[in-house]
């Protein structure tokens, strides 16, 4: 804390640090559950991963174990008007995952089977059947996995929608203030930033790829991997596809929005890190990504690429989420590192809020204890 700098103090029941879709959902439900809630972000609401992601609500790319959560999350996105008060242009569409080589076909079948076992209604189609659903496909495909439950959200609207819902719910929104430290404070926590101090009985860490740093504030060592995902968008073009299209390996995700632009993703990597953010696209990776896209939907060759950007996605050591109470601490929680985390965020956030509000969550959480590397150092007691 800078000595002599006047800092305003806010007293609340719970402070949520990080206003991505995870933190914002938790904060929203806690406030609606009657808690005085503060939500702090060093930037603006949902302007990191949660505002720049591909917005695909696909089960084809979701880790099998997370399918039940993703299906719930997808439903919530398609009904945001009801619980968030604003349409984020979420649309249901069929999803296809393609195979162009025998090896891809094997992978496709194995993956479809694993996901089906977890409740995803996926079935394998012949090329002709696939082309009937999506006439824009490259007819040289060998097989396709089909899932009726797919779709997309316009991710850049997320922040706008959440912001007004949070405001209406009475959440104290503190934007553009990086939290610098969290101290234990008798019964509770003191969350410190340059302008303000939030005193809270409970704290929720929801910092995406920055969770490693945040957990260290509380003396916990949990490595968090940072992926630098590239996305590519084209200019508006005539309708060339109506489904969400991917390939067996998960290296492609394609959809056309109502405005005619086509979004091309698939987890191709750019340059960056949690400190500098997503710095630059790698030209080879752009070219590889669009070659794959054009192979799947040949008509994409007609259009032009207008923008390539990067977003930061987090992953734990076992690539499974961490959601739940932090070990050795009283009323401190974490939420993040969820694969296809945008899809499931509205649901995951509600589960954690239920747990904090003392209700039994509908599905199991993901205990972070398994990921803590060294024994937590006792956090110094401060008064």
């Amino acid at each position, binding site marked *: 804390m800078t000595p002599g700098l006047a800092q305003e103090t806010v007293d609340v029941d719970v402070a949520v640090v990080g206003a991505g879709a995870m933190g914002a959902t938790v904060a929203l439900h806690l406030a609606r559950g009657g808690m005085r809630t503060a939500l702090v972000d060093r930037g603006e609401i949902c302007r990191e991963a949660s505002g720049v992601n591909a917005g695909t609500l696909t089960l084809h790319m979701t880790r099998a174990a997370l399918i039940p959560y993703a299906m719930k999350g997808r439903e919530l996105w398609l009904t945001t008007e009801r619980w968030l008060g604003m349409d984020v242009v979420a649309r249901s569409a069929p999803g296809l995952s393609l195979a162009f080589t025998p090896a891809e076909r094997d992978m496709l079948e*194995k993956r479809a089977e694993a996901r089906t076992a977890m409740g995803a209604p996926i079935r394998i189609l012949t090329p002709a059947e696939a082309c009937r659903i999506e006439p824009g496909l490259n007819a040289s495909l060998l097989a396709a996995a089909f899932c009726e439950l797919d779709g997309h959200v316009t991710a850049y609207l997320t*922040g706008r929608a959440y*912001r007004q819902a949070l405001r209406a719910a009475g959440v104290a929104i503190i*934007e553009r203030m990086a939290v610098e430290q969290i101290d234990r404070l008798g019964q509770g926590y003191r969350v410190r930033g340059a302008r303000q101090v939030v005193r809270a009985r409970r704290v929720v860490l929801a910092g995406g790829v920055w969770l490693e740093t945040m957990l260290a504030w509380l003396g916990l060592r949990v490595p968090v991997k940072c992926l630098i995902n590239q996305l590519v968008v084209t200019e508006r073009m005539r309708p060339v596809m109506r489904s969400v299209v991917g390939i067996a390996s998960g290296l492609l995700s394609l959809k056309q929005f109502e405005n005619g632009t086509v979004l091309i993703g698939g987890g191709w990597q750019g340059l960056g890190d949690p400190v*500098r953010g997503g710095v*630059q*696209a790698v*030209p080879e990776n752009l070219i590889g990504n*669009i070659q794959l896209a054009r192979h799947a939907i040949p008509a994409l060759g007609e259009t*032009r690429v207008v923008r390539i950007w990067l977003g930061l996605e987090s992953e734990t050591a076992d690539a499974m989420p961490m959601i739940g109470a932090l070990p050795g601490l009283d009323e401190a929680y974490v939420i993040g590192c969820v694969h296809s985390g945008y899809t499931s965020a509205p649901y995951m956030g509600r589960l954690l809020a239920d747990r904090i509000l003392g209700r039994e969550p509908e599905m199991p959480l993901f205990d972070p204890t398994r990921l803590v590397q060294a024994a937590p150092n006792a956090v110094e007691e401060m008064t």
Partner: protein
Amino acid sequence: MSRETDVVVVGGGPAGVEAALAAAAQGLRVTVLDEAPQAGGQVYRAPPHAFGGTIQRDADPIGVALRQRLAASSVVTCFEHAVWSVSPGFRVDALAPDGPASWTARAVVVATGAQERVVPFPGWTRPGVIGLAGTTIMLKSQGMLPGERTLVAGQGPLLLAVAVGILKAGGQVAGVVDLASPADWAREWRALASRPRLTARGAGWRARLLRAGVPFLYRHAVQAVEEVPGGLRVLLTRVDRHGAPTKKVAREYLVDALAVGNGLTASTDITRLLRAAHHYDALRGGWVPTLDAEFRSSLPGLYVAGDAAGLAGADAAVADGILTGLTVARDLGAMTDTAYRGAIGSLRRRARRARSFGTAMARLMAIRPAHVAAIPAETIVCRCEDVTRAEIDAARSEGAQTANQVKAWTRCGMGPCQGRICGDIVGALLAAGEAPREPVGYFTGRTPLRPLPLNLLAGDVEYTSLKLPPPAPL
């Protein structure tokens, strides 16, 4: 495969060409990339190649000399190469008519010049309304007129250049509508006096327009443009010295084209992309890269010369370009310190003089906050995505505070031009008036710097020979 060189210069205008020549003269391998078909940049843009050859009638002799010196040098030139990415390290990617090409270089000089700014008014996106700078391109490189009878409006020295250009090309100028007053022009007299050649040219242009009976309306601005049978109806209002219009329509013109522009903004695509430091300087065309006295950006190996560093005009671009080329040569070890100091002495003085003239012109082009504040609610601000001022205001009142946030909430700046046209106006609307621009920020720079035809970029490739990363986890 990337071609390897010492220096890549992006932009073959006066700044880029001079930087390239100066660095190459010290023995460095230099490549100039420009999307235009020939060197010269905006001001010395070459007329189209004459039939079967390179005879250039009507071209500005300065531009002709520039192209000749370049051709006689060791500088490698690649025209019709649009640079779409510069990555740290450095790798420069361009798209040529026959596909992608790339270079690796030890240093990059950004000499990408400036781009047009228009303060929006109802009807500014209609056919027949064209930018002042765009009109100069039309006149110079295509020898085309915007219309038979054109009204020329806006601010800054391009007003005269465009009006005279139209007369010379055989067109009719209905009037010159200037946001500035004669007193605003007179205030710059000291700077003008330092460049007698240019000032005399300006006076000559004015005289020629007056002889042709072209009316000059000072302290006026376009209020709206309407399409009417047979052309455009342009409504003008008076403005005060802050650029605030009166509500009344002062005059109407019936024309078939309106050339209108409110100055230029520095073209900072590459420096923003590379996350170099920038600051806002209203008098030099908005956000500009922060440079040291020798044209180094905050990123080692990245230099900026000419209007891309802040508007200073063509003469300053020449002097600053040479200085930048010499700095690069010294930093890359191609020139001793003593030789460098010997070379720059008189250049520095020349550059200062040129810059003072350019800055005076840039002041006349500077945006006037009250002019922006008066943009009517239903006016389109982002022409690529049809975002109106009312939508921007609504986002602002809902809590959006930064340019990037407004972009996400409204799609403003998301279209093919990527906010190049509207960026400065959106910033001004968000900052509201004289407030500092720093908290509002600017649209993040991203690749591609130009829209990339997907087929051209992807090339012809077999599926089985695609280089794919390992599959995502199940």
